[in-house]
C-alpha cells in the first residue's frame, strides 16, 4: 500500500503542472511595500524624526509589523478560493514582506481579490498560533485574548517639545469599563478589485503609513500616544483610519 502511495505521489508530481481543460493552477504572491504619502519607507528610514503627520506632529518610526490573513479570490459565479495561512509582515526586521501561500488557484477572471487586515474573529480566537506567540504577538486575556493586528511604534515631538514614545497597536476593540466586556470588530477586508489571472501572479500592495494618522480622524498624538490597546474608542478610530491605508500598486504575472 505504501509503495502504491509513493508511486501515485510521484506520478502526481510529474503530472500536476499539466493543463486540464485549459485551466492551470497558479501560485500567488503578495508583496508589501510601505510609504509615507508617497515617499518609500523601509527600516533604513527608521529611528529618525523625519515624518510629519496630518496633525502637524513630527515623528519617527521605530517598529512596524502587522498581520494579514485570508487572501481571497472570488469569481463572478460566487465561487471563492481562500489561500491558506496568514503573514506577519515585519518591516523592522525586513522579513515576511513577501508572502506566497502554498495553496494554488486556477487561472482566469476574478471579480474580486481581497485580504483581511488582522484576523477575523474565527481566526483570532479559535487557534493557538505558536509562531505568533513566539513573536509575542498575543493580546492579554484581560482584553479578550487573540492577537495584535498591528504594532506601529516610534517617537514624536510633543507640545512641550519633548521626544515622547507612541505605541499605535491595533487589536479588536474592547470596552472593559462595564461589568461585561463589549467588543467591536476592527479587523477589515481590503478589497483590491477585479483581476484577470493568466499566470503565477505577484500582487504589489502598498501601505501609506501616514493614512493611519489622517482620515477620517486627524490623529493627535499628544492625546493618543500610548495605552491605546484598552482604549476601545481609539481602536475604532484606528479601524476607521485603516480603511484607506492599503492600495494595489500593480500585479505582475
Amino acid at each position, binding site marked *: 500500500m505504501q509503495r502504491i502511495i509513493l508511486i501515485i505521489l510521484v506520478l502526481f508530481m510529474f503530472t500536476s503542472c499539466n493543463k486540464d481543460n485549459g485551466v492551470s493552477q497558479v501560485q500567488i504572491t503578495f508583496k508589501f511595500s510601505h510609504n509615507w504619502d508617497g515617499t518609500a519607507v523601509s527600516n533604513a528610514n527608521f529611528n529618525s524624526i523625519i515624518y510629519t503627520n496630518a496633525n502637524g506632529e513630527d515623528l519617527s518610526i521605530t517598529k512596524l509589523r502587522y498581520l494579514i490573513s485570508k487572501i481571497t479570490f472570488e469569481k463572478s459565479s460566487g465561487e471563492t478560493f481562500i489561500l491558506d495561512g496568514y503573514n506577519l509582515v515585519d518591516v523592522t526586521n525586513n522579513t515576511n514582506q513577501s508572502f506566497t501561500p502554498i495553496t494554488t488557484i486556477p487561472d482566469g477572471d476574478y471579480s474580486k481579490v481581497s485580504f483581511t487586515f488582522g484576523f477575523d474573529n474565527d481566526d483570532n480566537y479559535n487557534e493557538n498560533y505558536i509562531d505568533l506567540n513566539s513573536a509575542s504577538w498575543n493580546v492579554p486575556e484581560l482584553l479578550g485574548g487573540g492577537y495584535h493586528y498591528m504594532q506601529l511604534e516610534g517617537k514624536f515631538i510633543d507640545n512641550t517639545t519633548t521626544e515622547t*514614545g507612541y505605541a499605535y497597536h491595533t487589536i479588536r476593540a474592547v470596552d472593559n469599563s462595564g461589568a461585561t466586556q463589549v467588543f467591536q470588530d476592527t479587523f477589515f477586508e481590503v478589497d483590491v478589485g477585479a483581476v484577470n489571472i493568466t499566470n503565477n501572479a505577484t500582487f504589489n500592495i502598498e501601505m501609506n503609513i501616514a493614512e493611519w494618522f489622517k482620515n477620517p480622524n486627524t490623529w493627535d498624538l499628544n492625546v493618543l500616544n500610548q495605552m491605546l490597546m484598552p482604549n476601545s474608542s481609539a481602536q475604532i478610530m484606528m479601524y476607521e483610519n485603516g480603511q484607506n491605508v492599503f492600495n494595489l500598486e500593480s500585479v505582475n504575472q
Partner: protein
Amino acid sequence: MKTWQVHIIIIFFVCFSCDNESVERYFATPSSLDIPKLFEDNILAPVIPIDNPQTVEGIALGKKLFFDPILSIDNTLACVDCHAPENAFTDSDKFSDGVDGIFGNRNSMPLFNLAWNYDEKFFWDGNTFSLEHQAFVPVTDPFEMKSNWTDVESKLQQHAEYPSLFEKAFGASNIDSSLVTKAIAQFERTLISANSKFDKFLLGELNLSPEELNGFNVFMDEAKGDCFHCHGSDKNPLWTDNIFHNNGLDETFADLGLGAVTGDPADNGKFKSPSLRNLEFTAPYMHDGRFASLDDVINHYSQGLKNSSTIDPLMKKVDQGGVGLTDKDKADLKAFLLSLSDYDFINSK
C-alpha cells in the same frame, strides 16, 4: 516514523550500501530534549543545530567540562563559578571576577531555556551567534578564564578521562576546541526551566493567591505594568522576547550595549530582555547589576525611568519617571514575579 522518512532512509541506504567504506561511522546515543508541555503547546520548537545533535555522551561530557576548572589558565575557575545551579546558573555578584580577580563590567547571566532563543544572539548585547560559538568566548576572555585553546586542548588530551569521553561523545580521539564547545552547548540546551508555581497554575494544577493574580494583571495591563510586550506572557512562557531594548535606565550610556555591536547609534543603550523566570535566585539585576532587589527594579519601571533618544516607545510617562504604580500593585507585581521561581530547576542539576 513517518512513511516519507522511511523512504528517504531506504533511498540513502540503497545509494550507500555498496560503498567499501572501511571506517565505520560512530554514533553516540541520541537524547532528545525534554520539552515542557507549556512550551510544546505555545511556542516554536527549540533550536538544535544539525551538526550538533543532542546525545547522552555529549551532554554528560558537556556537564563535566562546565563544572571543571581545567578550562581556565590556572585550573582555578570553571563556568559553574559564575553560573551556579543554586543561582539558576548565574552568580550573586554585581560583576564576576575572573582568574586574576579582575572584574568584568557586566552582570553574569542565568542559563536556562537557551535553546528557545530563536535568533541565537547571546550575551547582553547579542554579540555572539549560537551557543557553540558562545562557549569559545569565556575560555580565552582575559576577564574570565584567560586561557588559550592550544593549552586547553593539550591539558584535556593528557587527562586520564577526557580522551575516552570525547571518543564516546564524538567518535574522535583528537580533542579540539570545537568539540569542547559542542559538548558544552549540548549540556546547556538541557538546562530547561518550566516548573514554577505559575507554570503549574497554567497547567491547572494549583491556584494562585489573589495577590499573585493581581500582580499578573498588572504585568499584562498596558496602562499599568505593560511588561508583556517585552517579557513574554502565558502564551510565551519563556518570559522574554530575547530582543534588545532600552528600558530607560540612563540618560547617557557608559555601556553602549547593542549599539557597540551594530555601530548604529539608534541601538545605543539597548540590551537583551532577560527572562523573568527564577528572579528569586538571580539578583542583582540588569546588565550592570545595578539593582540589588526586585523592589528596586519595580520602582525603576514605576517612577525611575530616564529619557534618552533610544528609550523604548513602550516606556510610558517618562517625564514623570513612569506610570506610578500603587504600593499594592507593586507588591502584587513582585508576588507574581516570584511565582515564576522554579525550585525544581535549581535543585535538580
